[in-house]
């Protein structure tokens, strides 16, 4: 069974502008993952460039725009994105500069991630073995720590498209709340002070594109709501 696949192509050394190229892929009637389809195209055309690593939804390397919706190519089956007789359209994640073909420059995304200080801050003397948490406090981190930084959420967010240098974005804010909610962290006040400007958090207008696309089923909008409430509590 032949599947028509349109792939975004751009090699800055050869092309003046990006273009879409059509490929015919024989799926043999199987419900392949989108990454499998890309690998079959790569056999036809070795010049195609894309990122992938673990091929099982853990590393977050192959975040792509698949038929208009961001997702991980390795865990997105064709049956989920292509109706019978339709084409598969693969583009790079939106809003980030293109390096080549489906590979984007993630610098802006990581810069925002760095801003929120994604590590535990605790200046008190370290105990002999480890900093303990109650099971209830540990439960607060569920739905937050699982983020794999694939950037599917932030690159589906218009606020991040327009202000990638100022708005932290859903992925960064999910991690910001992950450390704000951690009972072992002692820098809550400093963390909140870094988020109270009009851009970092408050550019989120709650349209929930991030929730819609997250391949891990996480809810950045909810985390952003918690941060907003913490900021409001701290300021009043």
């Amino acid at each position, binding site marked *: 069974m032949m599947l028509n696949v349109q792939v975004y192509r751009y090699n800055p050394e050869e092309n003046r502008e990006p273009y879409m190229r059509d490929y015919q892929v024989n799926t043999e009637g199987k419900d392949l993952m989108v990454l499998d389809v890309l690998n079959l195209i790569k056999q036809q055309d070795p010049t195609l460039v894309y990122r992938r690593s673990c091929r099982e939804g853990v590393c977050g390397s192959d975040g792509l725009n698949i038929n208009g919706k961001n997702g991980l190519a390795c865990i997105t089956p064709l049956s989920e994105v292509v109706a019978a007789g339709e084409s598969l359209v693969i583009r790079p994640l939106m809003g980030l500069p293109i390096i080549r073909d489906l590979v984007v420059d993630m610098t802006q995304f990581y810069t925002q991630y760095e801003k929120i200080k994604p590590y535990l801050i605790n200046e008190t003397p370290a105990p002999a073995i480890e900093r303990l948490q109650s099971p209830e406090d540990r439960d607060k981190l569920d739905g937050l720590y699982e983020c794999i930084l694939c950037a599917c959420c932030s690159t589906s967010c*218009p606020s991040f498209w327009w*202000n990638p240098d100022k708005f932290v974005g859903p992925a960064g804010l999910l991690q910001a709340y992950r450390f704000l909610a951690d009972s072992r962290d002692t820098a809550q006040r400093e963390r909140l002070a870094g988020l109270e*400007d*009009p*851009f*970092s958090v408050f550019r989120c207008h709650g349209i929930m594109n991030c929730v819609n696309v997250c391949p891990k089923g996480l809810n950045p909008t909810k985390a952003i709501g918690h941060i*907003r409430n913490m900021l*409001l509590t701290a300021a009043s």
Partner: protein
Amino acid sequence: MAKSVTNFSGNGVSDWLIQRVSAVVLAVYLVVVAGWALFSSGGFDNWHGFMMSMPMKVFSILAVLSLVGHSWIGIWAISTDYIKHTVVRLAFQVAVVLALLVYMIWALTIFWG
């Protein structure tokens, strides 16, 4: 942390709160004025008397201030999204703020004058 000189309060938390409170004030004001228009006997004298009563004077001024704050915050956000040229964006934001201040002073003179 990203700062802005043309932002209403300079603080995201304050802007967020003002945006919500002003929205509630405007919604209630709309209901009160629409309610009067629907259920009163009408006429300019009745309208004038209603609007110039002390509670409505205070409420109207509150609504005008809410409108100014709400618009300032909203249009500032939209213009920082869509107008990427710094000079054009600043000129637009200053023009909007000046217009809003003119409307505010005008409304204050009507209700307080």
